């Protein structure tokens, strides 16, 4: 195997990891605020179809990516209104959001089936972006860099910013946070909207970068893997990035091995690997010294309503 192939493989890993990382970062912030939104897949589909439609209409994939965040965040607004405003059950509302996103994206996307658009390609000059080696650094879609920058930003936000501290407090004990005077519902609403925007951006990666096209159910269940990744990473942004890239690497290397005629693993086993790994990690974390209780936000999935 020569270096150029290695570069190519690493690029594929980054492309496989990026949308998962984007969506999972959003969900991580949502979960840190104490909310479980199972609508990631639906929001990704809404983002994917928006990005493609806007890109086709305006000719600008960048605009498409921005628009994907707007519509997906709007969809997450439904979730926020129901779970926060009306204290509805988060699991049921999230599932409904996924059903909604799957349906509405298929309806809205019908006129866009069978055409393609400009790929949201590299932003650096061709001399760097097309160089067989330098492209490892300069040849990615801008979303790849954005995902990594967002990882840093989310890490800093949660760990070092005051707002991040409040958000974690809200997720750990909403009653306590409320009694100190933090606006629990507002914090959670903002977190949910952020999660929606990130899921939308993740969706746009599929319809603008991986395969510049739209077809029903384009994301093929990646939203659920993103949810799994958040748990796999035990709610830490750094581990999340590592996990997304690890997952991307496993998938890519498995396909490379098959393409080289080497793999003997059952494809069904490979397909269930991310989920098995997530369960294994859940068990390992809690079997170790640190209990899972410390990793998972204490209020995850529980509705909050100030009683006074």
């Amino acid at each position, binding site marked *: 195997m020569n270096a150029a192939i290695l570069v190519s493989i690493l690029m594929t890993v980054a492309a496989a990891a990026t949308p998962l990382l984007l969506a999972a970062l959003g969900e991580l912030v949502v979960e840190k605020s104490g909310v*479980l939104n*199972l609508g990631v897949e639906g929001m990704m589909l809404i983002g994917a179809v928006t990005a493609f439609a806007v890109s086709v209409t305006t000719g600008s994939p960048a605009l498409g990516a921005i628009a994907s965040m707007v519509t997906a965040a709007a969809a997450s607004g*439904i979730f926020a209104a*129901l779970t926060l405003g*009306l*204290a*509805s*059950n988060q*699991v*049921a*509302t999230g*599932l*409904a*959001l996924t*059903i*909604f996103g*799957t*349906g*509405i*994206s*298929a*309806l809205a996307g*019908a006129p866009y089936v069978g055409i393609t658009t400009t790929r949201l390609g590299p932003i650096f000059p061709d001399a760097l972006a097309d160089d067989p080696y330098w492209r490892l650094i300069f040849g990615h879609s801008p979303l790849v860099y954005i995902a990594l920058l967002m990882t840093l930003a989310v890490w800093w936000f949660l760990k070092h910013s005051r707002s991040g501290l409040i958000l974690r407090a809200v997720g750990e004990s*909403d*009653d306590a946070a409320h009694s100190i005077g933090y606006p629990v519902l507002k914090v959670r609403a903002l977190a949910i909207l952020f999660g929606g925007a990130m899921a939308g951006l993740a969706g746009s990666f599929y319809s603008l970068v991986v395969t510049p096209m739209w077809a*029903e159910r384009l994301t093929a269940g990646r939203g*659920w893997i993103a*949810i*799994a990744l958040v*748990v796999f990473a035990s709610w830490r942004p750094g581990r999340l990035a590592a996990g997304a890239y690890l997952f991307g690497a496993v998938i890519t290397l498995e396909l490379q091995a098959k393409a080289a005629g080497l793999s003997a693993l*059952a494809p*069904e*086993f490979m*397909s*269930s690997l991310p*989920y*098995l790994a*997530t*369960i294994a990690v*859940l*068990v390992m974390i*809690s*079997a170790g010294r640190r*209990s*899972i*209780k410390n990793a*998972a936000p*204490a*209020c*995850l*999935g*529980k*509705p*909050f*309503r100030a*009683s*006074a």
Partner: protein
Amino acid sequence: MVLRLEARREPSTLMVFASPAIAVVTTLVVGAALFTLLGYDGIGAVMKIFVEPLFNPYRWQDLLVKAAPLAMIALGLSIGFRANVWNIGAEGQYVVGGLAGTGVALLTYEMSGYWILPAMILAGILGGMAYAAVPAVLKTRFSVNEILSSLMLNYVALQLLYYLTRGPWKDPEGFNFPQTVLFTDWQTLPKVVPGTLIHLGVPIAGVLALVIWFLVVRTVAGFQMRVFGMAPMAARYGGFQESRTVWTAMLIGGGLAGLAGVLEAAGPFGQMTPGFPTGYGYTAIIVAFLGRLHPFGILMAALVLALTYVGGESAQTAIRLPSAAVGVFQAMMLFFLLAADVLVRYRVVNRTTARSQRVSSEPATRNTERAA
């Protein structure tokens, strides 16, 4: 005038019944408007999906057959939901139940006797229970969130199904297509009404609703489970064990999902194929909520959901409504239901006139555990 929500002392009995009705009616109105705006025949869509099948006797058996597994799974889940145990792995438990039954069917393929079908059904129930036991162990031994673990296991079950139907369980005479042999007559669920599609699973779902209604409403165990849902601290204080509650909820939920799985396999499918899972496990969560976690409500809700599927197909052929529209209808109905639900636990008051009365105890029903 400022409107605000105020917690009720007691959940409103009126609203318990009225809120699902409000949700369904709102869905019809908003759905008709939305689809008219999108350029479809909105009113026609509502008529085709929600009204016409009710007046076409041919469709009734379809509704019952489609509703039976949904009701069965939702009944099991409702027990857990009442106790704040969030098993969303019913899809996987349904698949494993179907697989366990199929395993027995393949072992007894050459045999005959009335014991075969009950053995399959028993295996299905045990299979679903065993699969639900995994998140139960993880929850009680390692405090792993059961929402996440049971969700992950759904995907694993799916791959197990693919592996078995494409590999060891493939019908040797089946032209290498991934599916098992057709079950024999001894392995097939009998029809309870000759000449129709209505199989044994339909009355079983009805009987189960009665049994669960009795258990939940009348027994100490049911009381214990509900107390856990409402006030976990108080329940612990009263000496009730949380782990026992988790186990009971998961095993009943898994067992009934497994039962639904084996009945579908031995009934309408008559074999095992990769197309076996069709999302019943997820739809049943909607059914459980639409039915307000009450056994009889669940029966009604299962029929309403079945209506959207059956009517959705008519709407496709009659007015060319895309199948995706049915999903949008279902999602809207659930959104409105969850929204209308608030009226059960809260009332809308005018802040300027009525000062809030402090309500010490959290409103009852599900999803309010916060004390831990």
